[in-house]
């Protein structure tokens, strides 16, 4: 399947102010913008005991999105756009469905699951991720840990459009029965498609707790050696799955979601990836990013070198930084970063 939506962004007209246009157009319809991709919350339903499924109406600028891919959703909380990745399913009416697990203490997930109002508008980025499937016959084993079910659901809905030409197994781990999402839908597909087998594994089931991925019994799976394995879930889950199956299957691809962890010491060096220039380099932790990048032969735009003039600001896509004057850490993804008064605490990805 190719891009679901056409990207209808008009060419840039220098004298035509986008902010001016968007101000008036969004007063008529909150999704009408000149270029910005936006989605509007139109429905919220419970998906399991602690997860909800949101139905989002996209505007015409929401770009191509393949089943199994993720998008960055920008939600404004306390005046600040806060970004999280979700794996949407494209519904038959063109809307996007995302399933959000309300994580205790999670700012964005709690907001989306409980307080976001119908009609709220969020920004949305282009689809990313390589966990997509072609329509050619392919022996697939899908492994989902908790919320890792969402991209698998999109892939299965895509595969379900015609009779399966090769067997597909889905193993879906959650702790308890009530945490399972999309059970009816998946069971219905299993009944419809003889080639599809659904295995649910409840690791904290009171009666018969199921084994985790590292001790799961895959011996009953046909043609395991020729299978393409896709795994999605927390980092620990994906790592364990790879250790368990990586050497025994045709190919293994994993996608993990986890927050970067703050190091105990602000020493040593980290990897910094610069997206615009396509470079990746190793820099020291303790020094300001501007100084460190200059030492590595890169000349970012800069000015006052004391955090005032905003010349060196760029977008930090991911990773944790530390303010050199206050010592505060910043871990939110996709926020502006002043290179001259911040140092790297973990590996970083920058729009530079």
């Amino acid at each position, binding site marked *: 399947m190719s891009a679901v939506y056409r990207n209808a962004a008009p060419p840039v007209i*220098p*004298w035509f*102010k*986008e*902010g*001016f246009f*968007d*101000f*008036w157009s969004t007063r008529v319809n909150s999704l009408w913008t000149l270029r*910005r991709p936006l989605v509007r919350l139109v429905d919220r339903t419970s998906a399991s005991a602690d997860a909800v499924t949101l139905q989002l109406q996209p505007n015409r600028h929401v770009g191509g999105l393949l089943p199994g891919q993720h998008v960055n959703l*920008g939600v*404004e909380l*306390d*005046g*600040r*756009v*806060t*970004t999280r990745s979700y794996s949407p399913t494209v519904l038959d009416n063109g809307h996007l469905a995302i399933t959000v697990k309300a994580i205790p203490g999670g700012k964005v997930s709690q907001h989306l699951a409980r307080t976001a109002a119908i009609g709220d508008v969020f*920004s949305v980025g282009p689809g990313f991720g390589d966990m997509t499937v072609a329509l050619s016959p392919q022996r697939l084993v899908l492994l989902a840990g908790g919320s890792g079910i969402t991209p698998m659901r999109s892939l299965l809905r895509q595969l379900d459009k015609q009779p399966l030409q090769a067997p597909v197994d889905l193993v879906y781990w959650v702790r308890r029965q009530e945490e399972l999402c999309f059970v009816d839908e998946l069971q219905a597909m299993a009944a419809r498609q003889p080639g599809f087998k659904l295995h649910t594994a409840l690791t904290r089931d009171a009666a018969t707790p199921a084994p985790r991925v590292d001790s799961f019994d895959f011996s009953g799976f046909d043609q395991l050696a020729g299978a393409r394995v896709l795994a999605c879930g927390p980092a620990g889950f994906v790592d364990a799955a790879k250790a368990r199956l990586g050497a025994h299957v045709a190919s293994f691809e994993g996608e993990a979601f986890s927050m970067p962890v703050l190091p105990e010491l602000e020493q040593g060096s980290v990897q910094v990836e610069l997206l615009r220039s396509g470079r990746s380099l190793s820099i020291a932790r303790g020094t300001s990013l501007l100084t460190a990048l200059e030492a590595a032969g890169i000349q970012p735009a800069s*000015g*006052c070198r*004391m*955090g*005032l*003039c*905003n*010349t060196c*600001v760029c977008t930090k896509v991911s990773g944790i930084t530390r303010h050199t*004057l*206050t010592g505060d850490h910043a871990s939110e993804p*996709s*926020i*502006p970063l002043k290179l001259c008064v911040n140092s790297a605490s973990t590996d970083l990805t920058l729009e530079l």
Partner: protein
Amino acid sequence: MSSVHNRVLSPQELQAFGDELDAVRGKHQALLGESDARYIRRIVAAVRWTGVAGRALLFLGAFVHSLLVPAWIAGVLLLGFSKILENMELAHNVIHGQYDWMGDPHLQGKTYEWDIAGTSENWRKTHNFRHHTYTNVRGLDDDIGYGLLRIFPEQRWHPFFLAQPLVAVVFALLFEWGIAIQDLRVGRVLAGKVTLRQLWRQAKPVRRKALQQIGKDYVFFPLLAGPFFLPVLLGNLAANVIRNVWTYVVIFCGHFTADAETFPKDCVRNETRGHWYMRQLRGSSNLTGGKWMDVMTGNLSHQIEHHFYPDIPANRYAAMAVEVKEICRRYGQHYNTGSMPRQFGQVMWRILRHAFPSRPAPQRPLVSELAAEVQ
């Protein structure tokens, strides 16, 4: 000249002074949130609505002839108000990156383009970087007289400056154009450093922006009015001039009052944070006048706070000023503030006085001497 006496601080006191001012920054930065976002969005809405209403009123006379004069006057005032609000409270603050933290693509300092003849790109360089980092440092801060006026006795006198009372008036009327060409440094042509052709080529982005602004206010909207071309054109011109004069007055009050100081180049060498704060304080002056004055000046009525914290949302300055003032009092530092007539009166006196030869007052204890002690 000034009768101000600032207590000379020891290096330790200067350090503590800077730390206390940094703490004010940290405290208010941590408070940023919903209310700041709501504030700047209300300003955006006010700019848009008054802009449209002002232009509509300028057109009204074409349809209802009896209302021509009152509608034209009201239209000019509203459009002027909209432009002032856009330039000062919205654009100037947004371009500083004050609202970057919101993540709103239309309020990003690096990309915002303002409704004025000059490009935001030039402004980011001459103002955000040079003026704010090297405030009132002679030879580094172009804003000292904008290369056109002699405001301080430390600037070398030249017979040309005898005309500056007149030059200053013309400069006020055309202020946006002065800002637009500031970074082209036209003086280089007279000095023979660049040819006119080179300058023309370098000016391409400036020319493009200027054409856009001229096209909008003096061609597009007047043409839209058809036979009513002239009143609309004159209305737009009047609104732009009102904005120019107002911004000129506000900006000149910020650094050119009687007690404002300038500094030699060597004072920024190995400058500490406390020292930098001290220089900002001595080079800046505030305006009293309350809420409306704050909004209409883009909070440059809190010039001192703006120079301490140029990247903190300006709607916070009034609250920060209470703490800043108290810190300055404890450290025996003069906090330069006064009404607009008083402050601008001092500016006008400087423009008149220094049109004629004048000699710098004996050197007062400057921060540069403190810096030497810190080393």
